Every structure is written in structure tokens, then in C-alpha cells.
């Protein structure tokens, strides 16, 4: 065999593998249970084939009936003007710019015209959602044609949108305008405006609550709020005499960043209370895991980071924080189990330059990292059946040139490019949509 590997170690390896494989001791005869299962599988598949043939024939006959037998297209049912889901088959590969959607907010205008995004096939985890130029898409494995599941009145988003059981939450922004917090309802219909003039939001672990802080016009005071997306009575609010930006939930607490003219200060707010509690020694909060209570915080005023377990009272005293290996952290996301987190570190402000993708166990020694050009978002994706999830990394390696890489813990590499697309360049135009509850 011409391409057979061959040297003395290779021969030893062959013998070693042969010897090792001999330990497997496979059964010589097929166990009855295996043969029974195999027979059932054959019978099942044969029946399924028959059903499929019947359905296909039935579909052809029905389609012939709908078109009146002359090939004409039936009239569309309903209007396409609202942000209701569009059938996958109706989506072109190249998607036109977003037109003005119907909204309930009088103050918004249509997104600025942007280059039509174009997509390659999606080969990543099934059912992954992305926000691209104001449109929320759901991508399916192997398909170039994502389904549209929502339209945001704003074409760019301040942070990654979050999908909840009640719809997708988008913090939209247009140049020269205040921000708008939108809920794109799951059942379709116009986007609902939840708030304006806020710099961040967070969604609870179960996706039922949303927290945000609205700023007064001078940005000298903020009103922290928790709203219920499920319409259950859970609203709470507090006015804080400083700038506040919500970062995340952590075991029922809301983790925020503050700024009062002096050094930034991470803090927590217990919904229902009238004040916030500083997290001493931590300047900024980067991300939280709402279910486990872990938070990524910077040390002091610097950019080096730690992973801290926030206790029920919100204090970062629930065990010593685990110090990260690097500095300059920009973004982080947690494994749904709370066992690990991934982050993007940047040494420079060059959006398209090299970034460090890092992986760290929240309490374990798990760790690693690799350089990825233009990386700016990580997200733990829906796990494949029977296995742990993979990590998606969104990059913009050149203006408007986006890719999604799939990274796997077990390989410590990000070798799989699962998607690429082009769209409007710059911050906020493209995001992987997070999910609450997180996919497990």
C-alpha cells in the first residue's frame, strides 16, 4: 500500500494496537437482543419507507389540486409585512436589506440601508440563532436558507440578543439615537418596546425575567428594573444615584457595573432592595452564569480577570475567586452546567486583529487558549445528542466578513468553520443569539 505509514516505530505501533485490540474479546456469536433490535430496525425502516412514499405521492396529488392542475401558484395566505416567521423555503440565499417593520413604538424608524447579507451553508449545531443586520435567523444544519424568526426595528444591537420562551430580546441602537430594548414576540407580531436609554440587559436562567437599568438624560442616576416576560407578578425597581449597567443574573441577584466619576465598580442588586452592594476589589463585571452564580470580574481597575462564585447575598465571598490566565477580557460565556467558561481577550482595539480565545474551568484546572483573528463572541451551543456542547466563536476577520467557528473542549482547537457570511461591517451588526434557558 503506497500510502501506508511505515518505519520501525510504526511497525511496533501496529503490533501494539493488535495486541491491545485483542483485549476487547468480542462475542463470537450475536447476542439475541442485538439481533432482535436489528430485525426491528429493518422492519421499522421498511415501514417508514412505505409511509414516505405514500406521503410523497399524496403531496404531489395534493399540490396538483391546489394549483388547479395548471401549475399556477395559489394566492398567499396572510400578510408578509409583520415579523412573523417566514418559511425556510421562502428565504433566498442572499437576503435583502430589512424593510421597515411594524412596531408598537412610535419613536423608531427603519434601519439604515445596509448591504444585503449573504450566507454560506450552516454546518454547526442545529437550531442556532443569529442576529444579522436587524434580522433574527434560525439556522439549520446543512442549510443555506435560515428561517427568519424576528425583525428588530434597529439594525444593530449593543450586546448579543437573547432568545427566551417569550421571544427574542434585542437591545437595539441606531447612530445618534438612544437605545431601545425590544421584545420580538415568539408568536410574531410587532416588536414590543420594553425600555429606552439603557446600556445593558440580562435575562434570568429560566428566561422569564429581564433586568435592565434606564438612565436619566444626564446619566447621573439610573433606575434598575426587573420585569417579568411571563406576565407573572415579579416586577421590582430601585433608583440608584449613579450610572448603572446591568450585566447579568447570578442566583437571583443582578450583577451590574457602576460608574460615578471615579473608578468603575462592579456591584450586585437584590431585586426588591433599594440599593446596590459593591463587589469589593472588582472593577468591571464581564459576564455571569445565572444558574450557577459564577461571574467573570476584573481585578481592581485593571483588565485581568477572575471567576468568582457569587453567594446568595451577592457577595463574591463564596470561596476564593479563580484567577484567569490572561488580561484584556472583552466577552465571556459559561458552559450551561457552570463547569467552564470561554472568553475573548484582546491586546489591542483592532476589531479585525488577533484575539485570544480562552477556555477555563470555573473551579477545575481545565484551561487552554488559541489565537483567532477578529473573534468577538463566544457561545456554548446546543449539544449534539449524547455529547457535551461545543463552543461557537463569532469572528469578523475583515470588514463585514463574518465567520462562525466551532471549538471543542476535547480537542483544544477551533478547526471547524461552520458558517460564513457577509453583511454590514462593524460592531453590533452580527451576533450569535444567546438562549435562556441555556441549551443543555
Amino acid at each position, binding site marked *: *500500500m503506497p*500510502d*501506508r*505509514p511505515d*518505519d*520501525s*516505530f*510504526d511497525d*511496533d*505501533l*501496529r*503490533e*501494539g*494496537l*493488535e*495486541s*491491545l*485490540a*485483542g*483485549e*476487547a*474479546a*468480542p*462475542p*463470537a*456469536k*450475536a*447476542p439475541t437482543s*442485538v*439481533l432482535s*433490535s*436489528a*430485525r426491528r*430496525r*429493518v422492519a*421499522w*425502516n*421498511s415501514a417508514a*419507507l412505505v409511509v414516505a412514499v405514500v406521503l410523497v405521492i399524496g403531496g404531489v396529488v395534493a399540490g396538483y389540486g391546489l394549483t388547479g392542475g395548471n401549475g399556477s401558484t395559489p394566492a398567499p395566505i396572510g400578510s408578509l409585512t409583520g415579523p412573523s416567521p417566514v418559511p425556510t423555503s421562502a428565504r433566498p440565499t442572499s437576503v435583502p436589506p430589512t424593510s421597515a417593520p411594524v412596531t408598537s413604538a412610535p419613536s423608531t424608524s427603519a434601519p439604515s440601508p445596509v448591504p444585503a447579507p449573504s450566507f454560506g451553508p450552516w454546518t454547526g449545531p442545529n437550531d442556532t440563532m443569529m442576529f444579522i443586520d436587524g434580522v433574527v435567523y434560525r439556522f439549520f444544519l446543512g442549510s443555506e436558507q435560515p428561517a427568519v424568526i424576528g425583525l428588530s426595528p434597529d439594525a444593530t444591537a449593543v450586546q448579543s440578543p437573547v432568545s427566551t420562551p417569550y421571544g427574542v430580546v434585542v437591545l437595539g441602537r441606531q447612530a445618534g439615537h438612544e437605545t431601545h430594548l425590544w421584545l420580538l414576540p415568539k408568536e410574531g407580531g410587532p416588536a414590543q418596546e420594553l425600555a429606552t436609554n439603557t446600556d445593558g440587559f440580562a435575562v434570568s436562567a429560566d428566561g422569564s425575567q429581564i433586568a435592565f437599568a434606564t438612565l436619566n438624560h444626564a446619566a447621573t442616576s439610573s433606575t434598575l428594573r426587573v420585569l417579568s416576560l411571563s406576565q407573572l407578578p415579579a416586577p421590582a425597581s430601585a433608583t440608584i444615584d449613579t450610572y448603572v449597567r446591568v450585566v447579568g443574573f447570578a442566583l437571583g441577584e443582578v450583577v451590574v457595573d457602576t460608574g460615578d466619576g471615579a473608578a468603575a465598580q462592579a456591584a450586585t442588586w437584590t431585586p426588591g432592595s433599594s440599593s446596590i452592594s459593591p463587589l469589593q476589589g472588582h472593577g468591571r463585571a464581564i459576564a455571569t452564569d445565572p444558574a450557577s452564580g459564577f461571574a467573570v470580574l476584573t481585578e481592581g481597575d485593571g483588565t485581568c480577570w477572575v471567576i468568582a462564585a457569587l453567594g446568595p447575598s451577592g457577595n463574591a465571598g463564596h470561596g476564593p475567586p479563580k484567577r484567569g490566565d490572561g488580561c484584556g477580557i472583552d466577552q465571556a460565556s459559561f458552559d450551561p452546567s457552570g*463547569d*467552564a467558561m470561554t472568553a475573548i481577550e484582546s491586546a489591542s482595539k483592532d476589531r479585525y486583529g488577533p484575539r485570544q480565545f480562552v477556555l477555563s*474551568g470555573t473551579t*477545575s*484546572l*481545565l*484551561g*487552554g487558549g488559541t489565537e483567532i483573528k477578529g473573534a468577538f463572541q463566544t457561545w456554548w451551543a446546543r449539544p*449534539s*445528542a*449524547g*455529547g*457535551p456542547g461545543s463552543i461557537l466563536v463569532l469572528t469578523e476577520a475583515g470588514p463585514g466578513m463574518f465567520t462562525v467557528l466551532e471549538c*471543542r*473542549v*476535547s*480537542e*483544544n*482547537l477551533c478547526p471547524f468553520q461552520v458558517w460564513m457570511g457577509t453583511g454590514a461591517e462593524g460592531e453590533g451588526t452580527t451576533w450569535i443569539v444567546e438562549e435562556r434557558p441555556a441549551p443543555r
Partner: protein
Amino acid sequence: MVEQDALVGLGGRVTERSSRLAELYERNVPDAVRLAYLLTGDREVSQDLAHEAFIRAVGRLAHLREADAFGPYLRRSVVNLSRNHFRGRSRERAFVQRGVAVPSAEPSAERTVVDREALRSALLALPERQRAAIALRFYLDLSEHQTAEILRCRTGTVRSLVSRGVQTLRTTMGTNDA
């Protein structure tokens, strides 16, 4: 063609079908179990995975255009199921172990055959695709092209996986002189 015979047999009467399935099992599953064992290092798990792969492959057999595709399909299923199993059970252990892997003592001049225990741990410490590539190339003696088909990658990737895997095995097992 043997697999073609089995394919025809699966459409026959129940007793005939059972006989064909048993024949198919005996011809293919033992090797699949050994392959799964190399990939997982666990005897019971390797049998379970091979059996699951066999059942899946049989389910697909009736729809495979070429009956000869049964063997490759079975092997691909074993590799995929092993990967899922390994990721689910010990992703963190594998990652950390690789991070702290220390080359063993100086190679022994007398050693001509790879030590089985050392090979077992070194093999299981490899990234899963490297491990699969090594097993397919060196144990099943598949060509680069056949290995690439099973791993669903290019032959160049197979060469790279094998090269890096062998280099790691050499280092870990202390046979750098080979």
C-alpha cells in the same frame, strides 16, 4: 458479493433474515468491537458501541446503494459513537491530562515492541480524531483515502492527524529514537 447477499436476505422471511443478520454480525462486529476498544479503552463500552453501530448500519443497509458500503458505514458509526461517548464521559480529564502530559523515562534500547499499558494510556490521551486516525490506519490498515472517508476529512488532514498522533505517542512513550 457477501454483503449483497445479506442485503437480499434481509428482505426475505423472518428466519432467513435472522440467519443473514447473524452472518453479517459475525463477519463485521468483532472488528468493530476491537476498533471501539482502541477508541474508548473500555471493554463493555466497546461492545455496546459496536452493537449500537451494527443496529444502525443494519437499519441503513436496505437503503445503501452499494452493499459494500456496510463495512465503512459501520466503522464510521463506531468512530462517531465512540467520539460522543468519550466527550460525554471525560472531556475534562482528557483535556487536563494532555496539558500535564510528561514524557516517560529515557527510551530503552531493548524495547522493540510497544508496551501495551503505555500504549493504552498514551492512545487514550490523544485527541479523539488523532486516536481514530491512528486506529484506522495502523490497526485496520485502511488507506488514507478510506480513513478520510470515515473521518469525513481530506487525505491531507488524515496525514496531519496521523503524523501528529504518532509524534505524540513517540514522545509520550519515550521512543523518540524510532
